[in-house]
């Protein structure tokens, strides 16, 4: 059954910034906004976006936010706004299992620092979102918690591993969500679900209280409806002042397209979406030029090696003692990672140093490097291969990470921005990459694009029948 494919524009506020302003001005209440989001979560339950919805707690918290506001206290820029967090992020008193059976029954006593930061800024946490088991995979097809489905077509994958976060934002079950990103797990589901998502500079946002995947690349970051939403959320999560240059535009900004890489080996609608983004930004005064990354093609091997070896170390004991508690796909990945030679891991980590040097050199000539987020649009649920080029199937896991590995390996921040659709209405995302610490220029670039285009405003329409979860 096909899902929506509709292109509904927003009714009411367009993004988190708008709805937070509406609450602050008394045009609506936190309770009304939270209840509307919980309604969306119920309507779309068959898409499988949540492992747990905290409905009662969320309504109570929203009532508290309304009382505070009535008394003249606004906690911060997220006051009263419903947000969701991925199931590998600790929420005090709530099962936090990273989509696994191994951690079933784990109930943290404390919130992760990122959850504390959201609550301190006034956010109402409405639930834990579904994910690929232990974040080790790109489809969010999970044998323990169910299959997450793409709301633009329920027969398609929402990607992953933060698939539930992407779906929850896309359908309006929250106004923002946290995901985690090691090899692409925020950016991939942002792209295929049509939302905006940031992998922050590695190390810039604390990952304490989060179940690790590959510690040298793990990050946590926001997924939301717009670049300005992500800017606000990033300021909250880093404890920094909001970007002062968000609306400065892109006149004179230098955009780099990587020779032989950025637009190579991608499906035609993806190339068209990214080219459209470059054309729109050029029309606003940006300069587009070619840049070189001579050794970029090694990135996929290094990405797979590091992303396989580090989780296999973290899971080593559980894998020996209770292998049957893992889903088959994750177990195979962990077993394979355990058998990689130590020299392969070290070579991959050494290659990262070289690739980082090359990227930083390229980012002296340009302000932002542009690639697709991934080379294709959402694949069917259950697919293990994809044809980026007709007649040439390739393994899905590696194909997912063709472009997302570059920032993951180098520690650079990257923002996925909706920039088009394929013939079936499935979203396409572009990836914007900046120097480490350069999130502001990413937000500024994407905000300029989103000010003159409407890709980020499209919302999936509720299909006649959403499958009931098993």
């Amino acid at each position, binding site marked *: 059954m096909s899902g929506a494919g509709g292109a509904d524009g927003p009714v009411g506020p367009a993004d988190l910034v708008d709805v937070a302003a509406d609450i602050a001005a008394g045009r609506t209440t936190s309770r009304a906004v939270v209840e509307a989001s919980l309604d969306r979560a119920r309507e779309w339950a068959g898409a499988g976006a949540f492992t747990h919805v905290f409905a009662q707690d969320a309504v109570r918290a929203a009532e508290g936010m309304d009382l505070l506001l009535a008394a003249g206290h606004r906690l911060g820029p997220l006051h009263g706004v419903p947000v969701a967090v991925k199931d590998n992020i600790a929420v005090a008193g709530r099962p936090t299992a990273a989509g696994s059976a191994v951690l079933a029954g784990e109930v943290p006593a404390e919130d992760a620092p990122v959850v504390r930061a959201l609550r301190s800024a006034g956010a109402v946490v409405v639930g834990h979102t579904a994910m690929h088991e232990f974040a080790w995979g790109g489809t969010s097809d999970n044998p323990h918690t169910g299959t997450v489905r793409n709301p633009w077509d329920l027969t398609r994958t929402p990607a992953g591993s933060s698939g539930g976060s992407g779906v929850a934002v896309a359908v309006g079950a929250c106004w923002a969500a946290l995901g985690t990103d090691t090899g692409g797990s925020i950016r991939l589901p942002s792209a295929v679900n049509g939302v905006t998502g940031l992998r922050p*500079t*590695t*190390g*810039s946002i604390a990952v304490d209280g989060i179940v690790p995947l590959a*510690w*040298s690349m793990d990050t946590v970051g926001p997924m939301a409806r717009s670049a300005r939403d992500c800017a606000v959320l990033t*300021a909250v999560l*880093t*404890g*920094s*002042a*909001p*970007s*002062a240059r968000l609306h400065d535009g892109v006149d004179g900004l230098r955009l780099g397209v990587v020779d032989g890489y950025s637009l190579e080996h991608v499906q035609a609608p993806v190339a068209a979406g990214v080219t459209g983004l470059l054309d729109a930004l050029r029309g606003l005064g940006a300069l587009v030029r070619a840049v070189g990354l001579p*050794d970029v*093609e*090694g990135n*996929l*091997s*290094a990405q*797979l*090696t590091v992303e*396989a070896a580090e989780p296999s170390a973290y899971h080593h004991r559980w*894998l*020996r*003692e209770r*292998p049957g508690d893992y889903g*088959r796909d994750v*177990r*195979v*990945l962990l*077993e*394979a990672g*355990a*058998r*990689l030679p130590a020299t*392969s891991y*070290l*070579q*991959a*980590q*050494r*290659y*990262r*140093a*070289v690739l*980082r040097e090359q990227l930083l050199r390229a980012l002296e000539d340009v302000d932002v490097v542009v690639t697709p987020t991934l080379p294709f649009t959402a694949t069917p649920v259950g697919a293990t291969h994809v044809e980026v080029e007709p007649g040439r199937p390739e*393994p899905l896991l*590696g194909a997912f990470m063709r472009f997302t590995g570059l920032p993951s390996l180098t*520690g650079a921040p990257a923002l996925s921005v909706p920039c088009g659709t394929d013939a079936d209405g499935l979203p396409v995302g572009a990836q914007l990459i900046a120097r*480490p*610490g*350069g*999130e*502001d220029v990413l937000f500024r670039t994407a905000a300029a694009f989103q000010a003159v285009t409407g890709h980020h405003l499209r919302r999936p329409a509720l299909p006649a029948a959403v499958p009931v979860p098993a």
Partner: protein
Amino acid sequence: MVDGTGADDDVEAEVRELLAQWLPMAAAVDERLAGERFRAVAPVTAFPAPPRAGGPA
């Protein structure tokens, strides 16, 4: 049980297939690093946290 990792016949074929995909791909990385004859490129362990953009709130 194979290699003490817990793998058994049930998943062994898939594990071997995956390694057969991954290991040859590392040639591109090896080739690049082989060119670094007079520099001991150190492996990345973690990147330092950068200064916060915009400074403290």
